[in-house]
């Protein structure tokens, strides 16, 4: 303790200068992206996301949801895989730019795109069906998401699953993400349950999705609605990703029992809106995605 105090006393000027230079550098680097703004084509939605995933076009369900929607609504768009270092103003990693305007959050992006391009994929459904579809989207985005997040970043680590290799990130990043998910899910509420209870509520959500879908081609029938993007974005994470994850084992065991319609639904959505799927994934990080 005394040696630290003496060091600080002796080199106080150097320490202050270093700290000031460090703060200035960080500020310049952060603001640099605003000064050197990339020019994008006009009238094209720029979809900022974190990059392609190993077995799905994105390991974040919200980016996959949004990109599926852009394809479903036939909106001209391009991808910019930079949002790990270039987050939105709200700190979210899925956001869009359109003619200089920035919008964050997948749901707000969808509403924005609907307004700008005069699109409404849900207009021909009854009010009751639209309401039910909105409830399904909320269940998936605000509840099922947390159960999967807890499995990937908290419980799987405890069970010795190699999530770092699955996500192709350093072990330390997975640990930090796990602490963040633990804290956020505790605040949200789901994180206060035990693992067995989280499994129970996850199974109930998957059961609800299966029963709601039934024998229909898509959530509301023969045609897709905007909520299909949310459901597909979320289910894709456990339909195609690592079989070692406990969440995936639970999902796959439910598919065998009586919820096989969810698996068929995922394959159907992939075939309909992602014919170039193989070009949009890294095949287990073995090659670069070409799209």
């Amino acid at each position: 303790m005394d040696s630290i105090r003496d060091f600080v006393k002796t080199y106080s000027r150097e320490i202050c200068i270093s700290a000031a230079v460090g703060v200035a550098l960080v500020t310049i680097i952060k603001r640099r992206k605003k000064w050197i703004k990339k020019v994008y084509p006009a009238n094209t939605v720029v979809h900022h996301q974190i990059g392609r995933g190993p077995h799905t076009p994105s390991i974040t369900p919200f980016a996959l949801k949004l990109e599926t929607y852009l394809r479903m609504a036939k909106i001209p768009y391009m991808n910019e895989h930079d949002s790990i270092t270039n987050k939105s103003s709200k700190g979210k990693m899925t956001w869009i730019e359109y003619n200089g305007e920035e919008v964050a959050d997948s749901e707000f992006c969808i509403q924005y795109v609907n307004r700008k391009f005069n699109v409404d994929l849900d207009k021909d459904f009854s009010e009751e069906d639209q309401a039910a579809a909105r409830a399904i989207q909320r269940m998936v985005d605000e509840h099922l998401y947390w159960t999967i997040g807890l499995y990937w970043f908290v419980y799987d680590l405890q069970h010795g699953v190699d999530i770092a290799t699955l996500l192709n990130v350093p072990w330390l990043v997975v640990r930090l993400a796990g602490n963040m998910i633990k804290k956020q899910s505790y605040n949200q509420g789901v994180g206060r349950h035990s693992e067995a209870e989280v499994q129970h509520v996850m199974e109930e959500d998957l059961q609800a999705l299966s029963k709601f879908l039934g024998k229909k081609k898509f959530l509301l029938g023969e045609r897709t609605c905007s909520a299909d993007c949310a459901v597909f974005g979320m289910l894709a994470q456990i339909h195609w990703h690592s079989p070692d994850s406990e969440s995936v084992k639970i999902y796959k065991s439910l598919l065998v029992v009586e919820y096989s319609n969810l698996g068929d639904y995922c394959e159907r959505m992939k075939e309909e809106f992602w014919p170039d799927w193989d070009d949009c994934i890294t095949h287990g990080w073995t090659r670069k995605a070409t799209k």
Partner: protein
Amino acid sequence: MYVAGMSSWTWVCVMGGALVCVGVVTRIVCRQRRRLPVPRDVVLVHHFFGRGWKVPSKSPFPMKLETFLRITKTPYMNDHSGRMSAKGKTPWIEYNDTQVSDSQFCIEFLKKKKGIDLNRGLSEQQKAIARAFLKLIEENLYWALCIELFCNEANIPLLKPMSPLKGLGFWLYYWFVKRSIKSATWGHGIGRHSVEDVWTIAQADIQALSQYLGQKKYFMGEEPAEIDCTLFGMLSFLLVTMQGTRYESFTKQNHANLVTYFQRMKSSYWPDWDTLITASESFQNDQGPTHYSGLSFILTC
């Protein structure tokens, strides 16, 4: 500075530690003293906030749980002493020495123990829709309501009369609750939006609830289901606790069927509402007595 052989910092630590010990012991003793004697097969519902100013509970979750007990005519009694469950969640219940926390887990526990199922008349698809709306209400709309009430400064005049503390105490309470809501909703995600963006999200949720309810007597049809307990609890929060906010006036003006539904549920299952709100002259503290089916008479245990 040294006093009685100890430095001032040591004294500060010793006094601080002593105060913490006194506080913990007092809390344990008070909890033991406040433990209610509960008859067998009677559910003891633990409320953290106690009865509310204009609504039997300020939080929608105890309202949901108590409404379920009333609809199913399950004998229960209330404990308003403020004990929290081991999970730090409230409300929670005790039933024949078993503790369960989280309102939804409490309901599932009671369904198994008592063999009751309000959803038995629903088809599989209807049950799925009900679950989806449960999550819309509890995982999304609830947070939007909290953000509006505690993070929109325009509503401070509405909070003051219902706050347990006045003057400087109110401002400390407001700061603490606002900080907790901001922290919780930031982690959730909805708190990263502005108050106005959250307003847009809430309008969509309220509209969805109104559209699905339509002109039905209950949310799923002619008979009450579990989702009615949740919806009623949240509407108590929205229409009564948040009375005077733009959320309440938006619902009244644009989705009046939700207001009519709320009144219908209130008169059916809470005929004693006025005896359970502290703003009423006929308020009776119901800590202890056993409620049977929410009827106007109360049996003492």
